[in-house]
């Protein structure tokens, strides 16, 4: 089998797994997770083979692994779809394959496979324990998820969509994978559909990303109509096309076509990768089960947004004068940097362990996009790969913590919110493996120097910003990095260090191997992957024909990133290490009223609700539904009905009854009767009268004959 065929086959196993589970394995739990797991495993193996081949192929950027088919006949030619493995998609494929496989394995344990089914567990609600009797002692144990098989079906579909998005060679197929992922995020965020908050979160996620997708579709359509193709190589690797796009003016003033299309495509990323102002869905998406959060918000979906803009960087940077910025790049730098610091400030005031990570994701994605905005192409790609590993690790770790807390709550009978950090503490003793892996991920996120992958990638971004002379971006990102380190340490301290603050925390226990093994694997990557920077940079940099921005020789970025990381970590540890149960958050004292603002996410959700949701609801419920639909449209219909009725009645009374019924009836109905009745009288039955009649006729005939015929 050739490499091209193998690439085509990569997205196939998860799709088949989805179909098989949905059609045949609806209730069978073990079978469905084996099918899903083997599918993920097959795709992983194929991806590794492809990756191994790709990295040793010389000059991959100029001669990628390509294969396409003529799919849709258009005009004289056809629209081709196919696969393309070049340096960028090969590294993305690498981390996608690993994270997906780890998440699949983790899900088996997270959903308590092997545990008894809960007695009052309803499908659509999270399982909350079953009774188990051992030696006349009943205690509650975690119960298995009722909709176990469905979960694996959905994440298989999700994996299929992501693989498709990564391996494809044209924007339309990418958009297809994009949209399927949007669907899967809806299905999975709303997995526990009996919870109203989960349902609302699912709808919110779908609609918010839809806004971004709409603009992206416009960009897609514009690109196709201007260039006639959506293929990456024909647009992005073709300097002639890029120059033409950069120099032709679009209908929007002061923007070239390249700028307009770039901005529209970037808006798709703003939605999908939860940048400001479309970031509101991501924290609410924590309603889904933790593997879903890991998958969506670390490994796949949000990364897809960043992958898109990295892929289309040549288009967005087209027409760029040396060291300058095109309008899309300005937008990216601004929105990326703003989002990075904005989300980081919200993260410091959250008390839900997953929410902190959610805002952290938003912030880190802002980093990547800001990097692209200043032209640090390779740095953005590098940070994308690193972030995927450590963020997935952190999410799975937090899931492990939550799982352990739930177990402890069931065991001790304590009623706590298993996700509230302020109710945890001291878990490093109870869950050591989780602690060490989580710490590795956290330090990577904070950019702990030299031993973590995150340090290297973040340093690259700061170097790029500094080296390009974008001071505002540099300072903003540095500040965001400081806050990142701070809230990371805050989280680690509150969750793991110190003493347990609740009964549940003290009864928590480590999870099974099936959950901790993925953590370990991801932790290895989170630490070690950063050392591949020297290989990574030229490999991915060859995509642009040059290595992006030359690494700055100045030490300022390096020193800055060292300092912000260490000082942030220290500050977080110092502030929270003495935290006791049921005290107010120490940060409140420091920040004062600002704390409330941060805790409530700057009231943005409330703002959107007031400004967009309520008018929209008013338009739907009042304007359209009542005024237009009931009053105007129904009124028109009723009027037409009444008009028809009155016309009918009028015709009936003026025409039908008098003319038809009376007139014609009289003429055709009554008259023969009348005439017949009249003529009936002539037949009296009396011969003598017949004779009279005959004689009269004879006389008449005789008269006529006499008059006419000459005798």
């Amino acid at each position: 089998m050739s490499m091209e065929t193998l690439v085509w086959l990569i997205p196939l196993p998860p799709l088949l797994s989805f179909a098989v589970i949905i059609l045949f394995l609806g209730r069978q739990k073990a079978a469905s997770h084996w099918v899903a797991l083997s599918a993920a495993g097959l795709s992983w193996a194929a991806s590794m083979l492809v990756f191994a081949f790709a990295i040793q192929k010389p000059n991959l950027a100029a001669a990628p692994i390509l294969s396409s088919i003529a799919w849709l006949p258009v005009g004289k030619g056809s629209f081709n779809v196919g696969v393309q493995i070049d340096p960028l998609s090969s590294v993305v494929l690498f981390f996608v394959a690993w994270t997906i496989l780890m998440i699949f394995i983790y899900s088996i344990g997270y959903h308590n496979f092997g545990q008894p089914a809960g007695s009052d567990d309803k499908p659509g609600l999270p399982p909350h324990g079953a009774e188990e009797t051992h030696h006349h002692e009943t205690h509650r144990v975690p119960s298995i998820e009722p909709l176990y098989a469905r979960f694996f079906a959905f994440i298989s579909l999700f994996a299929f969509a992501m693989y498709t998005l990564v391996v494809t060679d044209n924007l339309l197929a990418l958009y297809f994978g994009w949209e399927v992922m949007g669907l899967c995020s809806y299905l999975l965020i709303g997995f526990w559909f009996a919870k109203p908050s989960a349902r609302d979160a699912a709808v919110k996620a779908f609609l918010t990303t839809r806004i971004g997708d709409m603009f992206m579709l416009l960009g897609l359509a514009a690109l196709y109509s201007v260039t006639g193709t959506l293929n990456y190589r024909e647009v992005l690797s073709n300097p002639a096309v890029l120059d033409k796009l950069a120099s032709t003016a679009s209908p929007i003033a002061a923007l070239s076509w390249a700028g307009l299309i770039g901005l529209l495509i970037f808006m798709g990323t703003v939605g999908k990768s939860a940048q400001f102002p479309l970031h509101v869905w991501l924290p609410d998406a924590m309603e889904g089960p933790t593997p879903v959060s890991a998958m969506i918000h670390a490994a796949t979906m949000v990364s897809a947004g960043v992958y898109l803009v990295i892929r289309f960087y040549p288009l967005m940077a087209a027409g760029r004068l040396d060291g300058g910025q095109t309008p899309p790049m300005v937008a990216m730098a601004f929105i990326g940097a703003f989002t990075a610091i904005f989300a980081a400030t919200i993260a410091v005031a959250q008390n839900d362990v997953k929410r902190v990570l959610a805002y952290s994701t938003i912030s880190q994605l802002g980093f990547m996009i800001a990097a692209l905005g200043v032209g640090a192409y390779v740095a953005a790609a590098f940070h994308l790969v690193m972030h995927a590993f450590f963020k997935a690790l952190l999410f799975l770790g937090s899931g492990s913590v939550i799982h352990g807390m739930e177990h402890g709550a069931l065991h001790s009978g304590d009623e706590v919110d298993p996700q509230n950090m302020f109710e945890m503490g001291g878990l490093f003793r109870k869950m050591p493996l989780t602690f060490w892996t989580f710490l590795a991920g956290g330090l990577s996120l904070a950019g702990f120097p030299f031993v973590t992958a995150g340090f290297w990638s973040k340093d690259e971004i700061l170097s790029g910003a500094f080296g390009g002379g974008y001071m505002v971006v540099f300072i903003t990102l540095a500040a965001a990095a400081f806050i990142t380190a701070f809230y990371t340490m805050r989280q680690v301290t509150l969750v793991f260090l110190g003493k347990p603050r609740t009964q549940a925390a003290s009864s928590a226990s480590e999870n099974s191997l099936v959950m901790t093994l993925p953590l370990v694997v991801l932790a290895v990557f989170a630490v070690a992957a950063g050392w591949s920077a020297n290989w990574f940079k030229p490999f991915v940099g060859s995509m642009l024909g040059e290595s992006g921005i030359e690494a700055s020789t100045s030490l300022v970025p390096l020193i800055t990133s060292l300092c912000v990381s260490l000082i942030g970590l220290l500050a977080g540890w110092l502030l929270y290490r003495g935290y006791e149960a049921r005290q107010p958050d120490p940060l409140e004292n420091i920040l004062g009223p600002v704390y409330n603002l941060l805790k409530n996410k700057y009231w943005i959700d409330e703002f959107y609700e007031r400004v967009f949701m309520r008018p929209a609801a008013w338009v739907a419920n009042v304007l359209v539904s009542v005024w237009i639909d009931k009053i105007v449209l129904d009124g028109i219909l009723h009027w037409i009905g009444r008009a028809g009725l009155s016309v009918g009645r009028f015709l009936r009374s003026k025409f039908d009854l008098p003319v038809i019924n009376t007139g014609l009836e009289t003429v055709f109905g009554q008259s023969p009767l009348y005439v017949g009745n009249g003529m009936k009288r002539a037949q009296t039955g009396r011969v003598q009268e017949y004779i009279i009649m005959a004689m009269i006729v004879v006389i008449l005939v005789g008269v006529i004959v006499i008059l006419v015929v000459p005798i």
Partner: protein
Amino acid sequence: MIPLSWYLIFAAILFCIGLFGVIARRNLMSVLMCLELMLNAVNINLLSFWSYLYGKDLQALVFVAIIFAAAAAETAVGLALIISVYRRRVTVNANDLDMMKG
């Protein structure tokens, strides 16, 4: 001498008197009697034509003879019918014989 026209006019008048009687009389017997008048008028007609125009031929005479026979037969049958009608309907009133009405 007597012109042919006198006979012919006389026969016509007799015929019409008989016709009037047939149409206007109520009693069935009277209708029969008036019918005899009409037949006799026909006989006069025929014989006057024979006498004035066709005296050498015998056809007219044969015709008249047969008319005599037919008249007799018809009278007999007519009377039998009247008696039969009388038996059924107990009437000899022509007005009452309207079973063919309608």
